[in-house]
């Protein structure tokens, strides 16, 4: 990696020895990541560069590397060094294999415009991703970002359609029917990726030496309570205690079923009483950290150079970045608001639990009297109570969505 870098951009070392190790690396990672051969093959297979890039980003988004990512996103605030290798890089970028994506003729546009449009694409795409992730179908900041140029817009729409598969699968998984999704095997995926112990989507999957994956927690308690055997094939698990998370699988699951994972996180927060308030927020912030760093890296990848006119471009870029962040912020703010105004779903669930328990205690107490009639009336009352509670919860949830 380092060797390659130094070979590819020898000029950098001369010009700016300090920054070279950081920023241009970011910019050139694309080139060094994918060999020309690989890229041509990818082009033949119909993968565009963006897809490859995003794929590589996804792979790197392991939780362990969070601090590293932060560092990288900090790099954005550095000024990109004025390097001579810009042209070189651009040539590489424009090699016929690397941009097979769009058929629209943008040939008459100059380089900078192209770069701009690429950046905008990245933006709109990342915004869309955020959108889908948060299931805020109502707002479409993409339009504001890309309305300036008709070409760009149509291009981004095309892209959006391409990306649509990913987006749709995310949406489709929320609706369990998922017949409308462009991803017909989502049900099979759900089956395949669910833990055999809790029967839900694997949460922090851990893989046994024999190749079976379960939730980390489930596997651990299975090893504790049922002996150190694989629940599926009964092979010995050497050390059931030190389960590690299968990061590739975990990332895949998080991408495919973000809703379920969020719900599961919230449920986990409910279970641990003290952390009930904090952890959903923490999760949300961590999530936004990841996404923002992802955005920033996309930016960095798409704008490796800094030309003479880069100053204002950078300004506009940072403006746009702010707007992106602003687009992220309102949803979170809204969450907070709704939390403040209405009792959250967690509270509702806790309430329901308490009611159930009280019910049980009551019925337990009255059982000693052994009065059949009274018990049946109690059952009726209980059913009524339960129906009311569920209705109230429904109304609240609906109200929470409405605002």
């Amino acid at each position, binding site marked *: 990696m380092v060797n390659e870098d130094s070979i590819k951009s020898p000029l950098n070392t001369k010009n700016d020895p300090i920054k070279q190790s950081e920023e241009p690396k970011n910019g050139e990672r694309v080139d060094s990541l994918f060999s020309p051969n690989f890229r041509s093959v990818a082009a033949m297979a119909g993968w565009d560069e963006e897809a490859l890039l995003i794929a590589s980003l996804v792979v790197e988004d392991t939780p362990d590397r969070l601090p590293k990512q932060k560092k990288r996103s900090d790099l954005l605030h550095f000024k990109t060094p004025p390097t001579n290798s810009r042209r070189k890089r651009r040539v590489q970028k424009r090699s016929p294999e690397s941009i097979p994506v769009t058929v629209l003729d943008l040939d008459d546009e100059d380089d900078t415009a192209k770069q701009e449009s690429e950046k905008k694409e990245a933006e709109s795409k990342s915004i869309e991703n955020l959108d889908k992730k948060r299931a805020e179908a109502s707002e479409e900041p993409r339009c504001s970002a890309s309305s300036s140029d008709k070409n760009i817009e149509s291009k981004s729409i095309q892209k959006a359609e391409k990306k649509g598969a990913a987006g749709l699968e995310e949406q489709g998984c929320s609706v369990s029917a998922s017949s409308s999704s462009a991803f017909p095997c989502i049900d099979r995926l759900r089956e395949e990726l669910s833990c055999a*112990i*809790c029967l*839900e989507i694997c949460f922090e999957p851990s893989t046994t030496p024999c190749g079976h994956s379960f939730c980390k927690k489930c596997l651990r308690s*299975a090893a504790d309570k*049922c002996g150190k055997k694989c629940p*599926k094939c009964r092979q010995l698990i050497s050390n059931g205690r030190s389960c590690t998370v299968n990061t590739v699988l975990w990332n895949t699951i998080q991408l495919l079923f973000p809703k379920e994972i969020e719900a599961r996180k919230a449920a986990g927060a409910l*279970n641990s009483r003290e952390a009930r308030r904090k952890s959903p927020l923490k999760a949300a912030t961590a999530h936004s950290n990841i996404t923002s760093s992802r955005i920033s890296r996309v930016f960095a990848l798409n704008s490796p150079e800094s030309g003479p006119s880069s100053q204002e471009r950078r300004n506009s870029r940072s403006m746009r970045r702010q707007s992106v962040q602003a687009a992220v912020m309102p949803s979170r703010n809204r969450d907070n608001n709704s939390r403040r105004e209405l009792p959250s779903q967690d509270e509702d669930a806790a309430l329901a639990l308490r009611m159930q328990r009280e019910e049980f205690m009551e019925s*337990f107490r009255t059982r000693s009297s052994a009065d059949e009639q009274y018990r049946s009336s109690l059952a009726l009352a209980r059913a009524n109570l339960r129906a009311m509670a569920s209705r109230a919860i429904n109304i609240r949830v609906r109200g929470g969505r409405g605002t």
Partner: protein
Amino acid sequence: MYGGTPSGGIGISGSSSGGRAWPSTTSVSSSGKRIQKEMTELSIEAPPDCAAGPKGDNLYHWVATLFGPPGTPYEGGIYFLDITFPSDYPFKPPKVVFKTRIYHCNVEPSGNVSLDILTDNWSPALTISKVLLALRSMFTTPETYKPVVPGIAHLYFEDKAKHDEIATEWTLRFAR
């Protein structure tokens, strides 16, 4: 004779396991959730000739029905079973009891089933639908090496025709 079991009233009234009905800790959710999942899965797609569901409004007490598979002496019989889930369910096996009398070397006269997957070989990856399948295959091929009623197993080896005859008679008498 035991035909009335499926409508056995409110689950809580089962006095023997009252303490288990709603385990007081919040860990209810893990076992309860899993049982609920199994319930919905069973309602979508049950194994052939099987049915299972909660008895009353208690999630931890189920009743299951099995139809005697054709080609066996149990053909035409309808067998009711009680299934009781422990509070740490996926990690401990459910308790399965035949409520209908059956002439089978793996079923105690009291109705307790001696199936290896319900005792030592239980795995948390097993589900009720798999248990039902195992019970079904137990009808067709009794596990004669570790019988809980050795007399029946012995007869099965010595004189299968006689064994089948008795089993058919029991089916006609108790399971219709």
